[in-house]
């Protein structure tokens, strides 16, 4: 693997190194704290509690499901997405010493960040299952949508994580920019409010001359990527196949583009860090 001509197809060592980086990320995250991996549950649950109080008790957003469950179905994937991007941005620069002294496949660092976040996400999904059971929301055959939903979101996240990881090496203020972008992004996707056509939402009651807004809104791929999870757990109906297909294409394209950009600039990491 050390040779200058690096192979494109991952060999055994590459897979193991990815596994090691991922395991290390998880280990370091939980080992140092007393409550360990419980923290990865406490933060989203606290957020859920606050949003539930604010949006269902105070502002009274109407949804057809218990608000907590409605919220979690989109909030958990969002947390996976946003924390991957944030942690991914530091994945290269926090390994500056390693980058400068050892030659290895650099792309494994952001990939490992996404992998460890994905594992976290998996754990939180178990909690979601608990909530679904508590509120007696049945699990239907639509649960198989979880697979495309996860694949699409993971690919999309990976692609953007590659980009934030690479950019952070050259521009350290990427973290501030990213924070702002994620804040805006969070409120422009349906996490705390519904957009499903059958339910009351801002998008449904639009006056005619504002119709274009709906199409523009839908251009944001995260909208439907998060909706995929609600199709999986809540809507109990099948999304249009074109939606799945186009989401998949967008995600794949993002992943390929991200990887391409990352590989393009990674030879300069050692020099710039």
């Amino acid at each position, binding site marked *: *693997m*050390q040779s200058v001509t690096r192979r494109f197809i991952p060999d055994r060592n590459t897979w193991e190194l990815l596994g090691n980086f991922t395991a*290390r990320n998880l280990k370091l995250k939980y080992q140092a704290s007393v409550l360990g991996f419980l923290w990865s549950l406490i933060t989203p649950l606290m957020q859920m509690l606050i949003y539930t109080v604010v949006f269902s008790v105070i502002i009274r957003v109407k949804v057809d499901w218990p608000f907590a469950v409605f919220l979690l179905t989109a909030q958990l994937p969002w947390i996976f997405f946003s924390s991957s991007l944030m942690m991914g941005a530091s994945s290269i620069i926090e390994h500056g010493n390693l980058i*400068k002294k*050892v*030659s290895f496949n650099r792309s494994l660092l952001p990939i490992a960040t996404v992998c460890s976040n994905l594992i976290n996400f998996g754990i939180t999904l178990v909690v979601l299952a608990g909530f679904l059971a508590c509120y007696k929301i049945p699990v239907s055959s639509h649960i198989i949508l979880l697979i495309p939903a996860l694949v699409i979101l993971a690919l999309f996240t990976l692609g953007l994580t590659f980009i934030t990881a690479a950019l952070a090496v050259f*521009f*350290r203020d990427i973290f501030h*920019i990213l924070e702002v972008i994620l804040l805006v992004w969070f409120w422009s996707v349906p996490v705390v409010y519904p957009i499903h056509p059958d339910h009351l939402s801002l998008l449904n009651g639009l006056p005619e001359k504002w119709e274009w807004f709906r199409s523009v809104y839908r251009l944001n791929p995260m909208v439907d990527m998060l909706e995929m999870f609600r199709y999986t757990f809540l809507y109990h109906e099948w999304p249009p196949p074109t939606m799945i297909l186009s989401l998949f294409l967008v995600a794949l394209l993002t992943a390929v583009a991200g990887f391409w950009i990352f590989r393009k600039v990674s030879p300069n990491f050692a020099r710039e860090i």
Partner: protein
Amino acid sequence: MKYIVECENIGMQFKRYREKNRMLRWTILNQLRKRQPNETFWALKNVGFTVRPGETFGIVGENGSGKSTMLKLITGIMKPDTGTIKVLGRVSALLELGAGFHPDLTGTENIYLNGSIMGLTRSEIRSKFSEIVRFSELHDFIDTPIKHYSSGMYMRLGFSIAINVDPDILVIDEVLAVGDQGFQSKCLDRIRDFKRLGKTIIFVSHDLGVTSQLCSRAVWLDGGEVAARGSTQRVVDHYRKRVQETVEVRLEEEHRTVEADVENRWGNREVEITRVEFLDDDNHSTHAFKTGSMMQVKIHWAAKNRVEKPVFGVGIHRNDGVHVNGPNTKFTGSIPSYIEGHGAVVYRIEQLNLLPGTYYFSAAIYDYDITVPFDHHEQLYAFMVIPGDCEEEYGTFYMPSQWSYEGSYGPIIE
């Protein structure tokens, strides 16, 4: 396979940041102003050399000459801006020991993580694990988080992993300069083992002694360019000459500032030491002497009045404080009955049998009872001893000697 490493026309450019300013703002502003943000310089220019399989190849050069950059190109950490570099086989680099270590992980965890960063599979690491632990002598601490390790332990673990990666090419960058003597020689032994196994080694060091001992061929980088290349002897000789010249200039300067030194000079100045000269056997002034060569020290003096039976004394200290000798004219019974005006006394060492290093010379003039100092210069004059014909390297002295055998023994091999 003729060459295992082949570099051709390598060029590497770096930006010299005035300040490490990576704010997006600056990039945009500079783009708008159509201006180069920072000046650039070539860390390497037109560098080319080849390394044959099984060879131990040296890279010598001063700090900032591009050696480390060159190693980073060979290991694939960076890519050159111009030229091509071909490396066949697995490279393991001792650039910085334990670069990938994480302080919160235990020794074992770090061995697995670091090993896999270096390109080993899990089963390969497992089979080498006990050897790594044994070599590092860290058996009792292997399950302790390494943040509790001393820097020596940290290094030992790093070296053990790197050396056990079983690479085709081992790249070593001056890491041996650190660590205690014991571990250092253990590392050197290991490198020699490696050599014996016919592996290729690329060795970067300031230490010319070790370089010429280990390497068959070498390249000398100076300011990012190849200053000499070929057999180690040739390269090292060239390099040594240059180093000697620069050292010479430095010592010369130090030498001249003696006047101002009050801390290391005392005496009533009835006789003053006006100048101390180091001369080789041809009476040429120099500050570097080969082991075994002749060294002459000419101590110039000026006396205000006639002084009866003055005693001249000299002394040599190694730069680590070891007192090497301290003869005076009273011991040898060569005291003049008086001196007057000016003159000089020459202290001649027929064979300077000191081993290479930096030494300090003291000169003094006392009265006959050696109680009243006229002028005493304590360790004010530095000189260097450089390797001569003798092959010894441990200790302080070269003592001409022979080995002979008794009893039954085979023919002597070289």
